[in-house]
């Protein structure tokens, strides 16, 4: 009898294993490279590697205490899958960028997250035995280990929950508990080869075959702008999608004075000479610059997008993309674009309708003013959310917030404001303002700030350099009742669907210089205090313990 019971117990232990044996999802891997000639002669390239785990759902955090099903992956990166399951992350976005994206010259980027430095944001379900914040901490550290980046420094002092600007891009499962967003940015993080190597290891073909062969660190990190990203989303009808992206802006004009010709071998110093056997699609898109004559070699496999004119003696097309299908095309493949005429430097109209500039004014180490200029070059009024996630060392004087257009105060342009004040040494500021940007004008937003006086141990190494403040974010919103802002920030905005398509604009990072102490101070203080104490003690003690006596001096000269 007892044996029988025991065997049943053993079976119950193994049940999760049994259940796992039918897990095993259909996985597909797609890779794509988009190359776009920019107006200022530079070339933007965007690599996108997406792995789909068809039919999979994110782990429900309420099951975190139960043993997880076994993870069997073919194309999906196991190291990442483990992190996602361990911390029950529904949606995750990590970007590591270097440089400032120039919206005016380069237009909107293909991947919207271009803020300088590291940025991590994740949507996680509540209701687990471990809190969202504990899992957020674990996620940060796990990703820091995976990508060799200082993401562990994205601590509670930098973490905010801006649900409006960082709405989920995929879908959130309808669990009984709501989801919460956590966001943190670290502008001072540098991106380099040590981050790219683990990034490449997550790809099925690494950098040994397919489009990823072009990811040559010597050239990528030499580019004018470069950044990598990891995006995990849940798409309810398809599954869990992991997308690894790499964007760069290279400058062919730098090598040859006025020729903006580019090719894989000149841009990346590599060509594609092997196909990735596990890729179900592998495409290279070259966006048509829609001006001037140019020649694209080899002949593209097909064209997509807008209508095209194509004659043999003048192979130029209008609109759309030239598509090279790596699965059908011959390798080695070295796509190149040659222009008929030399590049002429000239003033060009801005590529992006919106632009945002942010600066920190004031010479004092205690106070300053944040000035933001948001220009709307378009013909329509734009409704947009402006988000600041300041570390607590910079505190806004919210009553000094003023909006001006052409020097005239326009408080009516501020539709709503959501402000979470900072907690010194603990929590960052969140300021989310929904603004109306009038057409063909510039909105100036000013707010006075106070800079914190930091504790001795809170200063970073190289304290005199100052602190990097994360970029502010501007998100265009549709015209609607702004009910989302007044709602609890942890809940999903009701107009999430509309926000999803919005392009986020990032400002540059700022540098703030709080007052720094003399770092040899502690020992000086010790010595100084000791001297004073010794002096006072000696005087008092001498007065109390000295023996006074009258000395009769012989009086002379009388």
């Amino acid at each position, binding site marked *: 009898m007892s044996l029988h019971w025991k065997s049943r117990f*053993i*079976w119950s*232990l*193994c049940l999760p*294993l*049994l259940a*796992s*044996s*039918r*897990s*095993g999802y259909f996985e597909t891997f797609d890779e794509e490279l988009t190359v776009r000639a920019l107006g200022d002669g530079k070339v933007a390239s965007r690599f996108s590697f997406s792995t789909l785990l068809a039919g999979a759902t994110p782990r429900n955090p309420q099951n975190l205490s139960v*043993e997880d099903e*076994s*993870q*069997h*992956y*073919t*194309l999906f*990166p*196991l*190291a990442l899958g*483990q*992190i996602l399951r*361990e911390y029950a992350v529904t949606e995750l976005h990590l970007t590591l960028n270097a440089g400032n994206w120039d919206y005016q010259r380069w237009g909107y980027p293909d991947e919207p997250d271009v803020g300088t430095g590291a940025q991590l944001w994740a949507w996680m379900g509540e209701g687990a035995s471990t809190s969202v914040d504990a899992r957020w901490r674990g996620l940060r550290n*796990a990703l820091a*280990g*995976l990508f060799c980046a200082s993401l562990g420094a994205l601590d509670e002092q930098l973490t905010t929950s801006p649900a409006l600007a960082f709405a989920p891009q995929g879908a959130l499962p309808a669990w009984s508990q709501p989801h919460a967003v956590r966001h943190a940015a670290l502008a001072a993080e540098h991106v380099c080869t040590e981050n790219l190597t*683990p990034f490449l*290891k*997550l790809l*099925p*073909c*690494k950098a*040994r*075959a*397919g489009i990823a062969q072009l990811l040559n660190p010597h050239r990528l990190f030499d580019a004018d702008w470069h950044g990598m990203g990891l995006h995990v989303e849940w798409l309810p009808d398809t599954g869990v999608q992991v997308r690894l992206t790499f964007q760069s802006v290279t400058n062919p004009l730098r090598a040859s004075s006025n020729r903006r010709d580019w090719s894989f071998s000149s841009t990346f110093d590599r060509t594609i000479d*092997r*196909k*990735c*056997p*596990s890729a179900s699609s592998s495409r290279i898109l070259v966006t048509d610059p829609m001006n001037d004559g140019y020649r694209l070699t080899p002949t593209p496999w097909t064209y997509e997008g807008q209508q095209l004119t194509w004659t043999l003696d003048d192979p130029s097309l209008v609109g759309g993309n030239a598509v090279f299908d790596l699965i059908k095309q011959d390798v080695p493949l070295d796509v190149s674009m040659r222009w008929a005429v030399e590049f002429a430097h000239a003033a060009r109209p801005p590529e992006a309708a919106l632009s945002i500039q942010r600066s920190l004014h004031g010479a004092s180490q205690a106070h300053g003013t944040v000035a933001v200029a948001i220009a709307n070059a378009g013909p329509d009024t734009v409704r947009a959310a402006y988000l600041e996630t300041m570390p607590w060392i910079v505190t806004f004087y919210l009553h000094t917030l003023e909006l001006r257009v052409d020097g005239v105060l326009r408080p009516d342009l501020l539709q709503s404001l959501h402000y979470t004040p900072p907690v010194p040494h603990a929590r960052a500021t969140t300021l989310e303002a929904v603004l109306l940007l009038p057409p063909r004008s510039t909105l100036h937003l000013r707010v006075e700030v106070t800079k914190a006086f930091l504790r001795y141990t809170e200063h970073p190494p190289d304290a005199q350099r100052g602190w990097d403040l994360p970029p502010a974010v501007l998100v265009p919103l549709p015209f609607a009742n702004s009910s989302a802002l007044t709602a609890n920030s942890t809940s999903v905005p009701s107009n999430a669907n509309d926000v999803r398509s919005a392009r986020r604009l990032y400002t540059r990072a700022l540098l703030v210089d709080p007052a720094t102490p003399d770092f040899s101070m502690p020992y000086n203080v*010790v*010595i100084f*205090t*000791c*001297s004073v*104490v*010794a002096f006072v*003690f*000696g005087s008092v*003690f*001498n007065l*109390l*313990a000295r*023996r*006074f*006596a*009258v000395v009769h*001096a012989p*009086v002379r000269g009388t």
Partner: protein
Amino acid sequence: MPPHVHPKGTTLRDPSKLFYQTDYNRRLIIASYWVIIVLAVPLWWYTTSIERLSLPASRVHSHAGNQLRFPVHIKLESAQDASLSISLQQLILDRVRTSPQAWKGLDVKVRNPHGVEDLADLYTITPGDGVPLVSQRQLTYPIRSATLPMLADTLASLLVPPTDAHRVAQYSPRYRLAFTLLNEDAAAGKAILGWDISGAISRHLLPIFNALSVLHNFTVESQVQFHAPLAFSPTTVDNCYGLTPEDLTVFVNSAEWSLSSSVSNDPVLHFILFIPSASRRPLQILDANGRPSPSDAFLLPQWGGIVIYNPSAELQSHAQLPSPVLHSVFSTFAGQLLALLGVPSLPLQLQSEASVLTGWQLDALLRRRALENAENAQDTLKSIVKLVDQIENMPVGQDVKGDVQHSLTALDQMYTSVSTSLNETLHQSAHALTLASRAFFNPGMLALLYFPAEHKYAVYTPLFASALIPLIAAAAREFRAWRSQRREAGIQ
């Protein structure tokens, strides 16, 4: 007239008549300074010292001498007279005497069939003709006086099977088993793009997981990699590529193969199916003489197992792993897993009724793991005590002390349970080892290790030296004055 000269006619007050200038009061003042200093020293000592709780060193040392002794009762069934069991007992004792290390911790007693029947964990030997047969805790063996030495040898290999201690992974209540299908270079063509891992695991490994569930829990994960280059070039031996025994030691290219998983601290056992690149087939393991060996698998001690599979030439360009290959690979993996976990194999001449493991094998494994854990736990505890004794700046907090105490308690419980339940003994030994290791690796013990006392004195000296020197000088002067006063009083 100089201004400091007192005018004539006035009398000076004698300073020694001032109340604080009397000898008694002055000495009282100096003495009170010293009293305060002396009283303050313990407080200063207390506030600046490191928290070092005393560890139960005597208990640790008394435990270190202890050794587990498992009682093993063997019932010789239907032996006509007691002489057979007595001579079997004698034969076993001889073997214990010749190799005491192997029989360490075992207390074998052969019982008469008419003896006590109340023992639960009783090994039974029943007479039977033909091939010896083992089942759960039973051995069917032709019992005759002539076969007794052979029976004793069989019992020895069942109770204390020989093992390779270097190969067996360290005990852990939970292992992570990472299966990886590695293509050396899928782009070179004819690669294996997938496998039916779930089916293979449930067929080959689930019975092992069930059989070992009293010892370990397992987490299983798997991945497929398409580009996993070797760190060296295999040698070419007539129309095939070969891995020399030296190559096998550096086979795993941990820099390029992302095998490790970082989300948990459980020890990982890796099982790798390596598909050589199409340009390097067939890849074979060479023996010491440089001849291709018939085996296609090898084991890395305490790390995992590797199987090399050369797809046949008829294979389609890219394919799933063929089902017969999958099953042969996974039965190799299963064997490697058993070897890594230290599961003893049955002696060759015995036949087994059990599907995976017999009670004899499982008990031998439980006993050895419990012995190992107990020894490790005792050694670790001894090391903690020694370390704390040696390094005086090392803080010992309540958590370390608690872990050490609980570990000792677990050891105590292990010794009391040894005669009743093997599972409980193993459980307690593992618990003791976990706690002892946790205490040993407690990060709090490192806190002040590198903060030397000299730093403290460097801060205190400017304060204390300048205050203490006048105090000592005044006390010495006053002491001298008091002594001369005494002497003068004595003369008078």
